[in-house]
C-alpha cells in the first residue's frame, strides 16, 4: 500500500493513501472528538466536532470527510478550533437534555443521588437509560463544558414505544445520522431516513409509519451505532453497565454471526454484534440481536431432570435420572431405538451422541432434523466439502442468487450483497417470489414456481453450446420447452449467460430450499455442472447453525463422522480400532422412518419435534425447554443452552467456530455431551469417560478427517479454521440422464403450495411462539396468494382459508401478494408446526429419504370467517 507523508500537529507521519485526516490522526494517536463518525459507516460531516485546520483549504474542514494528500499540514487543536468545538457542542446540548452532563451536582449525584429530580423538564439525568454509556457524555468530558449559556430548546417529542425490541426517544437524538447510514448504506434496508428539515428535522420512517409498517427487520444496526440513549433496547433498559462481556456465536442460522454478550451476575443482559466477527463484521439480525436474553432465561426452561411417575412428572436427581434411562434403554434392541437430534448442538455433542448410539446401543437409527433441507448433499459429489468465505460475496462481480428467502432466513447476507452491488456487482435473483433484500438493486428473473431447475438446464445448455462442451444428452432439450417450464425466454437466458461471462468472479449462491423443489440429488449435479461450465463458484447456504456439523459428525443413519459411509468397510475399521468396538454395518432409519416405522419402540429426542402420532413405549426428551412434545415424554433431561456450555460449530462456510461459555448452567441443567456420557458410562464401561468438551474435541481430531489441524487455543483467539474433508480432486461434469419433469396440473388441486422454511427456533423452541417481538414481525399464520386468484375464489385479504391436499387440510389467513404467479401459494413452514404432519404425502424419496414438500398440489377454499 502506497504511503504518503503528512504533517499533523507538527509531527510528520507516513500513512496509507486513501485514509481520511481523522483516520490518519487516530493512527498517530491524536484524539479528535467526534459524534457522527463511526468506523463502520461512511462519513457524514454533520456534527462538526472533528473540524481541523489544513493549510491551503479554507475554513474548517471536517477531518472525517477530508482525504489526506501528500504533504498536507494539519492542525487539530488550535484555540480557534477548540472554541468552535465548544460552542458547537453547547448548541447540541441546548436541544439534548443536559443535566447529566453539566449539572453542578454531578459529582455528588453519582455518589449520593442528591439531585434525583429537578424541576426543569429537561433535567433528565436519571431518565436516560444510557447514562454512563453515552458517547456524548465522553465528548463533553473531553471538550469540557461547564455551563450552557444559551436557553434550552427541548423538542418535547413523544417517545415512540409502539414497535418491538427498541424504543425511540428522539429528544435524546443529536441527529448524527448514524442509524440512517447503518440502515441505508450498510443494511440496504432504507427503513430510516431524515424527515422534515430545519429545526424540525427528526429521524423517522417515510410517512411517519411505525417501524413494522415501514418494513423494518429490526436488525438493530441502528441501535448499535446510536451514540446516545435515543435508540434503546427495551429488554436492556435499566440493566446498567455489564460486569463482563463474552464473545459467542449466534445459534440460529448457518452463518454463525459473532456476538458480544453482556453479562451481569449469572444473567445475560444484552448482546450486540462483534465488529471483529469474521462472518458478520459487526452486523447481525433480529434473532441474534434481541432474543438471547429471552431464550436463555425463558420461563419454560427446565432446571431438574423429570421422570414420569404415576402419570405425573417428578423432579429427580441426575443420578436417578441417568440410572433410570440407562436401565430402560438396555432393555431394547438397537433397531428398536431411534434418535432424533437438533441441528443446533455443538460438534462435541454430536460426536458423543453418535458414538453412544452406535457403540452403546448398537444402532444406526439416528438422524438430524436438517434432513428436510440438506439431505441432498452427496458423497458422490463431495459437495459437503465445499468451503468458502462469505466475504467473497463482497468481491464478486456477478452473483446468481437462487432462494427467495435468503433475506429472511440469513438476513446478514444482505449486508454482503449491498457491498457487492456498491462495488459494481450485478446481482441476479432467480426465483418465483420476490426476495426480501430491502433496497438493494438487483436484476430479477421471475421463474415459474419450481422453474429454477429448468432455467439452470437452459443456462447449462447455452454455456455448453458456446464452449462446445460435449454434453450430448442436452440435445434432447430445446429452449421452447425450457421456456414453457421455467417461464424464461431464450433471450433472457442469453442475457444471464452474457452477464456471467462478462462479469467475473461470479458466484452461484443457493439456498438449500432450491434443492427441495425437485427433491432429487440430481439437482446438485446440475448446479455442479453449471458451476464447472461457467467458472462460477458454488456457494450453498446451510440453514441451521450447526446442521453442517451434524452431518459432518455423523448424525445420520448412513454416514459416520467425516462423511464415511456406513458401507465403506475399509474406513469403518479405522473407527472400530480407535473406539475399540464394533459398529453396526447396516444403515439405520431416517428421520421420517424413525417417526413412522412400527419397529421403533423407544425414542430419544434431543431438541424438539412436532407431535408424535404413534404410540411409543418409552420417550426421552433432552432439551432446555418444556415444549409440547414433553407432555408425552417419560423422562425429560434438562440440557443447558449454548450459552451455558462451550464447544464448536461448523458454519455454512465450513468454518469451525468456537463458542465460549457465557454463564454457568442454570438450575441443574447440563451440557448435552455430559448427559449422554453419563448414560454411556452406565451402559458401556469404556469410551464415555469425558470430563470436558475439550477432551472430546481432542478425540474428534484423532478420529474425524478434516479436523486434525484444529488448535483450540488458536480457535479461541479467533483464527480461522476451515474444515478440509477431501483433497482437491479435479472437478468433473456429471452426465444427467434424467431431467426434471414438468409439474402436472391437477384439476382437483389446482394450486402449487410452496413452503418457506422457518428458521426462527432454537432446538425447536419457536421464537415466533415465545418471543412477543418476533411474533409481531415474523408471524407465520398467513398464506400468500395472488389477489386475482382470490377474486375468483371470493376471498378477501385477511380471510381465513382452508388449504387442502390429498393428505389433509390446514387453515391460514390470506395475505395478498400481487407479485407471485397465479395458482401458487406460499406458506411459511415449520417442522415444528402442526401443518407438517397434516398435509404431507409421506412416501419418501428413495435417495433423500424425505417426503415431497415443495410444489405440493392443493386446493384452496374459503374458510369459515368469524
Amino acid at each position, binding site marked *: 500500500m502506497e504511503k504518503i507523508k503528512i504533517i499533523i500537529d507538527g509531527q510528520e507521519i507516513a500513512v496509507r493513501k486513501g485514509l481520511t485526516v481523522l483516520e490518519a490522526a487516530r493512527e498517530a494517536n491524536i484524539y479528535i472528538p467526534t459524534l457522527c463518525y463511526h468506523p463502520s459507516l461512511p462519513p457524514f460531516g454533520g456534527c462538526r466536532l472533528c473540524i481541523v485546520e489544513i493549510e491551503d483549504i479554507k475554513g474548517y474542514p471536517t477531518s472525517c470527510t477530508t482525504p489526506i494528500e501528500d504533504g498536507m499540514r494539519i492542525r487539530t487543536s488550535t484555540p480557534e478550533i477548540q472554541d*468552535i468545538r465548544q460552542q458547537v457542542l453547547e448548541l*447540541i446540548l441546548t436541544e439534548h437534555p443536559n443535566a447529566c452532563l453539566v449539572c453542578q451536582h454531578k459529582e455528588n449525584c453519582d455518589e449520593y443521588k442528591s439531585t434525583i429530580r429537578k424541576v426543569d423538564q429537561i433535567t433528565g439525568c436519571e431518565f436516560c437509560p444510557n447514562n454512563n454509556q453515552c458517547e456524548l457524555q465522553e465528548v463533553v468530558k473531553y471538550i469540557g463544558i461547564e455551563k450552557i449559556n444559551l436557553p434550552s430548546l427541548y423538542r418535547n417529542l413523544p417517545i415512540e414505544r409502539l414497535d418491538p425490541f427498541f424504543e425511540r426517544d428522539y429528544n435524546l437524538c443529536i*441527529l448524527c445520522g448514524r442509524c440512517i447510514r447503518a440502515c441505508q448504506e450498510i443494511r440496504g434496508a432504507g427503513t430510516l431516513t431524515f424527515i422534515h428539515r430545519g429545526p424540525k428535522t427528526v429521524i423517522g420512517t417515510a410517512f411517519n409509519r411505525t417501524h413494522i409498517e415501514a418494513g423494518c427487520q429490526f436488525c438493530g444496526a441502528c441501535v448499535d451505532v446510536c451514540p446516545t440513549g435515543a435508540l434503546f433496547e427495551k429488554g436492556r433498559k435499566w440493566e446498567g453497565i455489564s460486569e463482563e462481556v463474552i464473545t459467542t456465536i449466534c445459534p440460529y442460522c448457518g452463518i454463525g454471526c459473532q456476538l458480544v454478550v453482556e453479562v451481569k451476575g449469572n444473567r445475560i443482559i444484552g448482546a450486540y454484534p462483534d465488529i471483529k466477527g469474521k462472518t458478520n463484521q459487526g452486523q447481525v439480525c433480529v434473532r441474534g440481536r434481541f432474543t438471547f436474553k429471552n431464550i436463555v432465561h425463558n420461563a419454560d426452561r427446565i432446571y431438574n431432570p423429570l421422570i414420569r411417575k404415576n402419570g405425573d412428572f417428578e423432579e429427580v436427581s441426575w443420578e436417578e435420572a441417568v440410572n433410570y434411562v440407562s436401565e430402560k434403554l438396555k432393555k431394547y434392541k438397537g433397531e428398536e431405538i431411534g434418535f432424533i437430534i437438533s441441528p443446533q448442538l455443538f460438534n462435541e455433542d454430536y460426536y458423543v451422541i453418535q458414538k453412544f448410539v452406535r457403540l452403546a446401543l448398537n444402532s444406526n437409527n439416528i438422524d438430524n432434523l436438517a434432513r428436510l433441507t440438506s439431505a441432498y448433499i452427496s458423497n458422490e459429489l463431495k459437495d459437503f466439502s465445499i468451503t468458502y468465505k462469505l466475504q467473497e460475496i463482497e468481491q464478486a462481480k456477478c452473483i446468481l442468487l437462487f432462494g427467495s428467502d435468503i433475506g429472511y432466513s440469513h438476513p446478514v447476507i444482505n449486508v454482503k450483497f449491498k457491498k457487492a452491488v456498491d462495488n459494481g456487482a450485478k446481482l441476479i435473483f432467480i426465483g418465483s417470489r420476490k426476495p426480501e433484500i430491502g433496497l438493494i438493486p438487483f436484476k430479477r428473473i421471475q421463474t415459474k414456481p419450481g422453474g429454477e431447475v429448468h432455467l439452470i438446464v437452459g443456462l447449462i445448455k447455452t454455456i455448453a453450446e458456446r464452449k462446445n462442451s460435449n454434453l450430448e444428452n442436452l440435445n434432447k432439450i430445446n429452449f421452447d420447452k425450457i421456456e414453457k417450464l421455467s417461464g424464461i425466454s431464450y433471450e433472457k437466458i442469453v442475457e444471464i449467460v452474457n452477464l456471467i461471462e462478462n462479469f467475473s468472479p461470479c458466484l452461484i449462491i443457493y439456498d438449500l430450499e432450491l434443492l427441495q423443489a425437485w427433491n432429487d440429488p440430481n439437482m446438485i449435479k446440475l448446479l455442479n455442472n453449471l458451476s464447472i461450465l461457467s467458472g462460477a463458484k458454488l456457494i450453498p447456504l446451510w440453514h441451521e447453525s450447526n446442521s453442517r456439523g451434524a452431518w459432518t459428525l455423523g448424525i445420520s443413519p448412513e454416514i459416520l463422522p467425516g462423511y464415511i459411509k456406513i458401507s465403506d468397510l475399509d474406513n469403518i475399521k479405522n473407527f472400530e480400532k480407535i473406539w475399540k468396538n464394533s459398529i453396526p454395518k447396516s444403515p439405520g432409519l431416517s428421520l421420517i422412518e424413525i417417526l413412522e416405522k412400527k419397529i421403533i419402540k423407544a425414542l430419544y429426542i434431543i431438541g424438539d419435534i412436532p407431535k408424535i402420532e404413534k404410540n411409543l413405549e418409552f420417550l426421552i426428551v433432552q432439551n432446555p425447554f418444556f415444549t409440547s412434545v414433553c407432555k408425552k415424554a417419560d423422562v425429560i433431561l434438562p440440557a443447558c443452552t449454548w450459552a451455558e456450555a462451550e464447544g464448536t460449530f461448523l458454519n455454512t462456510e465450513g468454518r469451525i467456530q468456537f463458542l465460549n461459555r457465557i454463564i454457568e448452567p442454570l438450575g441443574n441443567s447440563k451440557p448435552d455431551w455430559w448427559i449422554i456420557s453419563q448414560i454411556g458410562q452406565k451402559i458401556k464401561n469404556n469410551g464415555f469417560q469425558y470430563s470436558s468438551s475439550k477432551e472430546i474435541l481432542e478425540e474428534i481430531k484423532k478420529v474425524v478427517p478434516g479436523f486434525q489441524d484444529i488448535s483450540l487455543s488458536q480457535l479461541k483467539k479467533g483464527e480461522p479454521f476451515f474444515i478440509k474433508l477431501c483433497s482437491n480432486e479435479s472437478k468433473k461434469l456429471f452426465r444427467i440422464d434424467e431431467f426434471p419433469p414438468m409439474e402436472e396440473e391437477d384439476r382437483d388441486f389446482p394450486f402449487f403450495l410452496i413452503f418457506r422454511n422457518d428458521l426462527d427456533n432454537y432446538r425447536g423452541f419457536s421464537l415466533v411462539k415465545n418471543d412477543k417481538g418476533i411474533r409481531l414481525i415474523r408471524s407465520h399464520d398467513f398464506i400468500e396468494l395472488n389477489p386475482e386468484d382470490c377474486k375468483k375464489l371470493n376471498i378477501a385479504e385477511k380471510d381465513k382459508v382452508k388449504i387442502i391436499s390429498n393428505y389433509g387440510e390446514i387453515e391460514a389467513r390470506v395475505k395478498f401478494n400481487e407479485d407471485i404467479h397465479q395458482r401458487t401459494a406460499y406458506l411459511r413452514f415449520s417442522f415444528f408446526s402442526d401443518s407438517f404432519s397434516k398435509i404431507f404425502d409421506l412416501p419418501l424419496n428413495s435417495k433423500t429419504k424425505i417426503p415431497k414438500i415443495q410444489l405440493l398440489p392443493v386446493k384452496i377454499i374459503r374458510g369459515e370467517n368469524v
Partner: protein
Amino acid sequence: MRNENITLEKLEIKRKSIIEKRKIYNRLITVCGGTGCQAYNCREVFKKFKELIFQKDLKNKIELKITGCHGFCERGPIVVVQPEGIFYQRVTPEDVEEIINETIIDKKIISRLLYIDPITNCKIEKEKEVPFYKKQKRLIFGNNGLIDPTNIEDYLAIGGYKALTKVLTEMKPAEVIDEIKYSGLRGRGGAGFLTGRKWEICRKAPGIEKYIICNCDEGDPGAYMDRSLLEGNPHSVLEGMIIGAYAIGAHQGYIYVRKEYPLAVKNISQAVSQALKWNFLCKDILGSGFTFNIDIVQGAGAFVSGEETALIASIEGRRAFPTPRPPYPAEKGLWKKPTNINNVETWANVPLIILKGAKWYSQIGTKTSKGTKIFSLVGKINNTGLVEVPMGTTLREIIFEIGGGIPNGKKFKAVQTGGPSGGCIPESLLDLPIDFESLSEAGSMMGSGGMIVMDEDTCMVDVARYFLTFTQHESCGKCVPCRIGTRQMVEILNRIIKGEGEPEDIKQLEELAQIVKKGSLCGLGQTAPNPVLTTLRYFQNEYEAHIYERKCPAKVCTDLIVYYILPEKCVGCLLCLKNCPTEAISGERKKVHVINQEKCIKCGMCYEVCPPKVKAVIKLSGKKELENIQKKQKTEGDK
C-alpha cells in the same frame, strides 16, 4: 424523431432558408409570455391578436409571437411592435383590436398604452427609450423579447447555435476552456468561482465518465432570472451546455429545475426535444463525432438543493444533503464521477463569449468581475423586474435610474442583495459599484442576483428575523451550527421584536453568527447569518431601540408599536370603533374616541379605516412615545 442529416454545413443552409422565409413579414408583434405577464393574463391578449390577424387576413404580413420575459414585469402584459419597437404596456384583450387597426394598419401610436416616465411625466414610445431599459446592457437577456422560446427556428434566425458550430469546427476543447478562462467569466450562482478554471479541473480529473449539470434550482424568494432564461431562451442555455460538455469531455448532462417552475420545465423540455431533432444533442452532434445528451430532473422543492453537492444528492435520488468538500464535485460528483455544475445564467453566457471572443467580453465589467449580471429588482421599487447591467454599475443607478426609485415618495432605507442569506446594504453605500468583491466587502454577496429594496417603513430587526427564519426553515438539518445555531438566533430575534430583548443579546447574536458562519457545512449555513450581521453593522441603532427603549422606530413590530387617537383630530365618526375586532375603542358619536391599550391587539384596523382627511389614528413606535404624548397633553391641559 431525429433528423440525422443535419450536419454543420446543412445547418447554415437551413438557417439561411429560415431567415429568407421570414422576409415576407413587415411587422412583428411580440407579446411577453413570461410567468409575470401570464399572471396578468397575457395569454388572452395573445389569443385576441391571433384571432384578429386571422380575421383581417394579415397572416402573411404580420408575424406574431409570444416571447419570454421582457424583464419589465411591473408593467405587464407588454406588447412590442417591431421593427419600430413601439412599446405598449398593461395591454388588455380589449386593446388588441385598436392596436391592430391603429398601429399596424394606420401606423399610428396609441398614446394611452404608452409608458409614462414617472420622473419627467413624458410618454415614451419606443422600448429602448424606456428608462428601465435604456440603462441596461441586455447581452444575455435581450433576446428573450425577440424569440418564441418554443420555436427553435427563432433562435436559429438570430444566430443561435453559431457558437456551437464554431466550437465544433474550429476549436479544440482546451481552446474552449482557455477562451472561457480569458473572458474572466465567473459563476453566476453565487460563489463566483472562475468558470474556465472549474471546467479545466473537471476536464483534468481522471476518469472517462463525466457529467455536467445546469443548476436551475433557483430558491431565493424574489429572484427569477434563471427561470426567465429557461422560459424565454432555453436554447441559449442548451448551447452553452453543449459547448461546456465538449470542452470538459462530458457525454451526459442534467438540467435540475424546480418543479415549481412549470413553464420553465415545459419550455426547456421542448427545447431539448427540438435540439435532439436538429442534431444538436445525442450521438454525433452535427456530424462532428461528439456525443452529448441531456436529461431534465425536477427538484422537489428544498432551498438547499441549489447547493451543488445537495443537488447532486437529489439527482441521485437521495435526500438533498450537502456533503463536505473536498472532494469537490469536479473530482467526485454525480455517481462519484467528475462533475461540473454551473448555474443557468453562467451557461447562457458561454455562447456569447465564444462568438464575440474573450477579449471583447473581458472589456465589460470591472477588474475582477467581467460581463453583465442579471438582477431581479423587487421590493419597494417602482419598476419591479429583471435588469441586466454590466458589472460595476452602482446600486444607485440600478435602484434610482433603472428601477425608478421608491414608490409613494418614501425614503430608501436599504437593499438586500444575494437572496435570503445576503446582507442589507444601507444608503451610505449606494454608490458602490457592484461586483463579487465589493458586495462581500460590504457584508453581503452577489448570490444569484436577487435585489430587495426596502423603504423607510421597514424594520431592519424584523427583516433580519424574516430572512433568518427562512434560512432556518430551509436548513437541511444535517449540521449542528446551521440547524441549532440559526434556531437560537431566531429565538433571540423573536425576543427582541417582542420587546423582550436583553442588552447581552447583541453580543450573543454576534457570537452565534460567527459560529454558524465558521462551523457550518455548506454555503447555506455559512451565509445564513449575513442579514443579521449586516443589520447589526449598519443599523445597530434599531436593535438598540428595540432592546433599550422597547420601541420599533419603523413602526413594524406589532408587540412594540402603539395605536393612538389624537384627540385634537378625532371627529368621532365611530368608524374605528365599529371596525375594532376586540372592542378596544370606546367613544360616542362626535366625541373623541379612545383606545384601551390593554385590549388592543394591534391589528391596525383603526389606522386603516380612519378617513384620510381626518388622520386621527396614528402609529407610535413604542409605549414611551405614547407616554410622552400623554404627558405633553396633560401639561397642556393643566395650562
